[in-house]
Every structure is written in C-alpha cells, then in structure tokens.
C-alpha cells in the first residue's frame, strides 16, 4: 500500500534555531495536510497543500509542496518552546489509495529554552 516517509523522527533544537521536517512519497499525491500534536494532546490540523510547488506561510511556519507533488516540507523559523510537539504530514491520492489519509511517522520536536 501507499506509504509516506517522514524524516527526521526526532529533532532537538535550541530555542531560536530553525527546524525542518520532510515528507516523501514514491507516488504522486492529490494533496498533503500537516497536523501538530502537542504532548498528551491530539492531532490538530495546520494546513493543506494542493497545488504543485505551492508555498504557504503561517507566521513562523512555512509549508511547501514539491513540484512533482511527491514531497513536502514544514519549516519553522526561530523556534519557540510553544512549538514543542509532534508534526505529522498526511497524504491522500496516489496509487493504491482508497480515499483515506496516510500519515507519516511524525517528527517530534523538542525545544531547549
């Protein structure tokens, strides 16, 4: 079945440093969504990317969808302790997909104050 690979699995940064997580698929995706899960919490929707090469920003967060619609990234500029949590990409579309979201393994971000 379809798989979505997300790296890195863990990232520890000093507050103020930048952070990036990457999501890759071997098949072309219809769209990609990003979710954030705070420690002890539940996944919360952040954004959806649909168009090839799309770039969207939310304050210090920048989301990109690759030109081939097979990869995506989330970049956080100047991390803060409030950014701590696990970030998931979730993809739909591609071969073998039956209308469900396939979640990446998640990247857990720790921010040292």
């Amino acid at each position, binding site marked *: 079945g379809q798989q979505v690979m997300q790296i890195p699995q863990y990232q520890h940064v000093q507050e103020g440093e930048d952070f990036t997580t990457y999501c890759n698929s071997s098949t072309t995706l219809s769209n990609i969504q990003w979710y954030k899960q705070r420690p002890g919490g539940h996944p919360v929707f952040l954004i959806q990317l649909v168009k090839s090469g799309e770039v969207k920003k939310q304050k210090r967060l920048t989301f990109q969808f690759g030109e081939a619609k097979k990869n995506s990234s989330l970049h956080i500029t100047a991390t803060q302790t409030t950014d701590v949590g696990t970030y998931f990409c979730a993809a739909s579309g591609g071969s073998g997909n*039956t209308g469900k979201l396939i979640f990446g393994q998640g990247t857990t971000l720790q921010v040292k104050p």
Partner: protein
Amino acid sequence: DTAVSQTPKYLVTQMGNDKSIKCEQNLGHDTMYWYKQDSKKFLKIMFSYNNKELIINETVPNRFSPKSPDKAHLNLHINSLELGDSAVYFCASSHGTGQETQYFGPGTRLLVL
C-alpha cells in the same frame, strides 16, 4: 463546545476483558474514523464510516468491532483485550471522505495489564 468527544479518556483493564470506547461529533460531518496511535506515535487508521456505512476496514483483528448508530456517533468495541492493544485510540471526523481535513477527539488512553 467540544467538536469531537470521546469517552472514557483513560481505560485501565485486565487482559481478556471486553471494553468499549464511544465517540460523538457535533460538527455535522458525514465521515468518522478510528485511529490507533502506538508508543512511537505512529497513527494507523483502523476503520472509517460514512453516513453509518463502513468504508474503510484495515487489517485489524476481528476482536475490534466498530458500530455507528448514526452519523454523529462511532463506537469501538474490543473483545478479549491483549497486552498489545495498549495504545491511544483517536476518533476523528471529516466533512467528506479521504482528502478532507480531519478533526480529532482528545483520545482514549488504553492500558491492558
């Protein structure tokens, strides 16, 4: 107002017992899901219902039986609980299927002893 609610929040039980988790959404969504999140935070879809009809049934032991009495409710019954069933179970809902944004409940933390 809670959009997606789950009960109970915590569940500690003995191996071999049968237990149920309930989920309700007040968003007017047509589709509801059950996910299992393991200790490594991997989110795996288990089931999905659209307007009370089962549309996704992943490779899950038949000890797990979902039930949707109406489109606002999706329950999960687990028979003969095993140690490996310990995880966080998230209910989610979306307006449509597959590519739509999903709204997650707070999760049910199940510990099987």
